[in-house]
């Protein structure tokens, strides 16, 4: 190229952009101008001017009103033609099209659903202004346990910290709703002054809580949620100033929060917010019951805020060693605190869904590949008639675009269906499940995924066949046969590798789930119902009245027909608890706050152990005499007996959690361990104290009946109403449901990963069957020659199976390698089984290989059994090939020496 020639790229661009009639003239003029510019202005400025020609021309305006073949309308028209042509092609082979659309629909649908879940639960912002500055502050004990803070600690943090714009505490707590209607239990939170400021949200109607509401003897006020306003007040805008009875106390409604406000816990569905009493802030420093959230100042970050609070905590530890020794703080982003644990399992699910999509794509690519081969004559014809390469590329891309868009639509349908089908599983296993929806973001994801798949699928067959049409009438067999065969084998190997990976994951999740379900909980949940009663408010300020209430209710239930046992506890097994530390009578000198183990504390009413069938190991269960608050008897579990007393006999020993002025309680019995903190959490030291020692309002009543325990609920309700007509019964469940709830996460993982693995297995099996059937059909001719040359049925059978299974087994080995590589990561999600457990691997491999073998056997048997003369077979190859969609096989040239030229023997040795 001489120095004054117009450079290639701008020239090509102009060639595309300029209308045809004036293209040559304009480019000639531009070239002349360019030459002139080069000599007058120098090459650099000449180039700049040339590029200005390309960039500064308002092409869009020109196209719409310019030449007779403007580019953009031309593209649109071409696309329309291509799509129409593609649609006709697809309609012409409905079986093929249905297969492709279902496969793609499943792949895209699985990803759409999983992305919808991930987006709703993890990616969706919490929805508050600058929510990246919202944090939760946890108190971390010397024993490593993290949790809520005590009132006085929170008050000191709030006063001394310089890192927070606002710091607020709350105590979650359902409350009893009284008034005219039937009593009900609603979701509430008692919040400190700065709660609403922390979240930066104002009331939609009225006001939020203000400092005046927290003064002693201030009128009790309540802020209600949008949902509660709708339900309880029929969205009456004159709600402000009306009275609501909460825990028997009238509260004046001062505000309605905007729709969607759900702080502090983002998925709690709060009904009401009331003021946290000053009394809560003045409780003992070792009563850590307040949850703390805060908004960081703009000049503070997580690290500096944590440093700041830890310095304060260190000062408090020095000042109050009895309660705060070794206690420090942690600052965690709010989203992380509530959703952090879900990240791993959800991303794992995302990976599994991605693997399914990859398998689906490879499957469809295989089908399109076979079709591309079948369409070589068509391609050759179109080339012969003058179609340019680019035009054909566009045609193939448009067809795959069409397939993927329709596949995407099928996928969206499947995703919608599966999300509603799994709705209850999602709700039980995931917080924020209400946010899961197929919104614009998810649909955009689906569209992008479909487009990506479309490009990949459109290019794959072209890359392999290269439009090896050649002149019409020439041998249209692909010159790239070997390459295509290799690509097909790669597809099979990749599919098997991915499926094996998924199958291993699924078997691991299933085995983990089974391991969890077979765990001994230490009690017998079958046939037990539970309900919550919370006698609180003015009428129950006197603890003796609460005790009398529960005694009355339990006596009433005990006398019901069909009830075999009844009791009550402050904390249901599997649902967490509250703990304390104790000192042993006679060993006070040994007690060191920081080293003493945490002891779970359950308050029980008589009959609890019998109802739950918790076995007595030694001593006895609590009896009426143990309920004397001045000389109480208590029951401990085996772990506590072992940890505190070792070889010593625990019976008759006395313990106290009051350190300064001990209030001794005598151990009268030892019971078996119960899993208090979840199915997968080993039992911890636990003691059961009589309700009278610590008569707090909320108790779970447990009832064992003959048959279905839920049938007892109506009569139980009548008993409660007879004792107190104003007190609501809430949270009615069976213990089996409690157990299922505790295992929901496991069940969710096992169900979804198994489902995805199952889908993958079906896709792969169908895929390999299709590939093998086609392979066998395409090789009818070759098989005929092999048989003519002396191969028997067994040889043929073996040949077909080996050809199919070799890449499959290669894939299996690759999958095994990948699985072993990923095993440490998977280890975090399994329970009761090693991630590399040989039985798991063997099971998964069998599950994957067997259907693969079967998929090969059927076509292989057909190939080997087809009766008749090999010559007929060879002659018939054209028509059979056509049936299988491979009209490409038209001519057979047997050369006297060496391998027949156009027989594709792949890597197999010649006959």
């Amino acid at each position, binding site marked *: 190229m001489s120095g004054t020639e117009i450079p290639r790229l701008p020239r090509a661009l102009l060639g595309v952009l300029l209308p045809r009639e*004036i293209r040559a*003239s304009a480019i000639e003029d531009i070239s*002349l101008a360019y030459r002139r510019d080069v000599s007058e202005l120098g090459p650099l400025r000449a180039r700049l001017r040339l590029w*200005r020609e390309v960039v500064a021309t308002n092409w869009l305006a020109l196209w719409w009103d310019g030449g007779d073949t403007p580019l953009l309308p031309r593209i649109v028209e071409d696309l329309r033609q291509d799509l129409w042509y593609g649609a006709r092609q697809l309609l012409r082979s409905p079986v093929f099209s249905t297969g492709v659309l279902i496969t793609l629909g499943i792949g895209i649908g699985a990803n759409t659903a999983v992305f919808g879940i991930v987006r709703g639960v993890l990616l969706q912002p919490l929805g508050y202004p600058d929510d990246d500055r919202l944090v939760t502050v946890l108190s971390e004990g010397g024993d490593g346990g993290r949790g809520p803070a005590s009132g006085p600690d929170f008050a000191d943090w709030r006063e001394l910290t310089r890192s927070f714009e606002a710091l607020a505490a709350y105590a979650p707590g359902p409350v009893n709703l009284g008034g005219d209607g039937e009593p009900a239990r609603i979701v509430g939170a008692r919040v400190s002054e700065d709660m609403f400021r922390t979240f930066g949200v104002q009331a939609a109607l009225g006001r939020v809580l203000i400092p005046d509401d927290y003064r002693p003897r201030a009128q009790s006020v309540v802020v209600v949620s949008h949902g509660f306003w709708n339900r309880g007040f029929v969205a009456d805008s004159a709600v402000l100033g009306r009275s609501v009875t909460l825990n028997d106390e009238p509260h004046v409604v001062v505000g309605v929060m905007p729709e969607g406000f759900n702080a502090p816990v983002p998925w709690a569905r709060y009904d009401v917010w009331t003021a946290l009493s000053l009394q809560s802030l003045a409780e003992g420093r070792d009563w850590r019951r307040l949850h703390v959230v805060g908004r960081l100042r703009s000049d503070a970050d997580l690290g500096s805020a944590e440093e700041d609070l830890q310095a304060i905590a260190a000062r408090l530890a020095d000042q109050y060693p009895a309660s705060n020794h070794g206690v420090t703080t942690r600052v965690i982003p709010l989203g992380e605190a509530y959703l952090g644990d879900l990240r791993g399992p959800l991303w794992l699910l995302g990976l599994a869904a991605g693997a399914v999509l990859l398998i689906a794509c490879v499957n469809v690519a295989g089908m399109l590949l076979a079709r591309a081969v079948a369409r070589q004559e068509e391609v050759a014809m179109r080339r012969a008639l003058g179609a340019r390469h680019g035009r054909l590329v566009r045609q193939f891309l448009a067809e795959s675009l069409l397939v993927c868009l329709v596949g995407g639509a099928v996928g969206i349908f499947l995703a919608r269906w599966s999300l509603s089908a799994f709705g209850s599983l999602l709700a039980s296993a995931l917080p924020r499940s209400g946010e899961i929806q197929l919104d614009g973001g998810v649909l955009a994801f689906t569209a992008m995924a479909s487009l990506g798949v479309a490009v990949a699928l459109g290019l794959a067959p072209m890359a392999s066949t290269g439009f090896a049409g050649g002149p019409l009438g020439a041998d249209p067999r692909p010159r790239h046969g070997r390459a295509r065969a290799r690509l097909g084998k790669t597809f099979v190997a990749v599919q098997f590798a991915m499926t094996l990976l998924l199958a291993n994951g699924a078997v691991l999740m299933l085995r983990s789930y089974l391991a969890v379900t077979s765990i001994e909980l230490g009690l017998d949940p079958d046939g037990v119902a539970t309900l919550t009663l919370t006698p609180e408010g003015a009428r129950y300020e006197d603890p003796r009245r609460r005790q009398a209430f529960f005694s009355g209710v339990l006596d009433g239930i005990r006398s019901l027909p069909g009830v075999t046992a009844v009791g009550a506890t402050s904390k249901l097994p599997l649902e967490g608890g509250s703990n304390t530390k104790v000192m042993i009578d006679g060993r006070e000198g040994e007690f060191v706050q920081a080293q003493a183990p945490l002891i779970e504390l359950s308050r029980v009413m008589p009959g609890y152990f019998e109802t739950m069938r918790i076995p007595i190991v030694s001593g006895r269960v609590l009896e009426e005499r143990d309920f004397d608050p001045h000389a109480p008897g208590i029951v401990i579990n085996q772990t506590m007996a072992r940890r505190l007393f070792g070889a010593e006999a625990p019976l008759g020993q006395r313990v106290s959690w009051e350190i300064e002025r001990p209030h001794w309680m005598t151990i009268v019995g030892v019971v078996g361990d119960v899993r208090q903190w979840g199915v997968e959490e080993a039992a911890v030291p636990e003691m059961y104290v009589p309700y009278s020692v610590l008569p707090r309002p909320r108790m779970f009543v447990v009832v064992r009946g003959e048959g279905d325990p839920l049938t007892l609920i109506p009569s139980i309700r009548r008993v409660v109403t007879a004792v107190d007509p104003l007190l609501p019964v809430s949270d009615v469940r069976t213990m089996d449901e409690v157990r299922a709830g505790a295992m929901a996460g496991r069940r969710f993982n096992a169900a979804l990963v198994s489902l995805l693995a199952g889908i993958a297995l079906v896709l792969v099996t169908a895929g390999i069957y299709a590939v093998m059937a086609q392979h066998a059909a395409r090789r009818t001719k070759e098989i005929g020659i092999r048989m003519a040359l002396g191969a028997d049925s067994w040889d043929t059978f073996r040949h077909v199976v080996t050809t199919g299974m070799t890449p499959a087994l290669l894939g299996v080995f690759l999958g095994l390698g990948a699985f072993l590589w990923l095993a440490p990561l998977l280890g975090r999600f399994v329970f009761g089984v090693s991630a590399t457990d040989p039985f798991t691997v063997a099971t998964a491999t069998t599950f994957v290989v067997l259907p693969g073998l079967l998929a090969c056997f059927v076509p292989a048997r057909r190939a080997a059994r087809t009766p008749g003369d090999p010559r007929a077979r060879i002659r018939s190859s054209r028509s059979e090939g056509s049936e299988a969609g491979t009209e490409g096989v038209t001519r057979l040239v047997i050369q006297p020496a060496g391998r027949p030229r156009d027989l594709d023997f792949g890597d197999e040795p010649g006959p």
Partner: protein
Amino acid sequence: MPKGQNLGEAEHLVLLAAFRLGADATGADIRDEVARRTGRDLTVSAVYVTLLRLERKGMVTSELGDPTPVRGGKARRHFTVSPHGVELLYDARERFDRMWEGLGPAPTGDA
């Protein structure tokens, strides 16, 4: 004036430049003429596409000339304003003149 016979600003400039240059102006000549007289630096492509549009509306005609006398030079299209185009130009001028009637010179900046 029939509908669709209005002149856009670029069309007006290009048509007028072609008219000034007389018969057989090329796109580059027209661009240079516009640039010299108005300072508007149109691109060659824009001039050509505008000319194509004017030709469709019957305001200019074109024919291929001799190849450019350089190595590899190609024939260029030469444009001439049609009588219809001339008529439209004078119509446009008359309309503008009538609109300007009675208006003084441009006000100065410090007025």
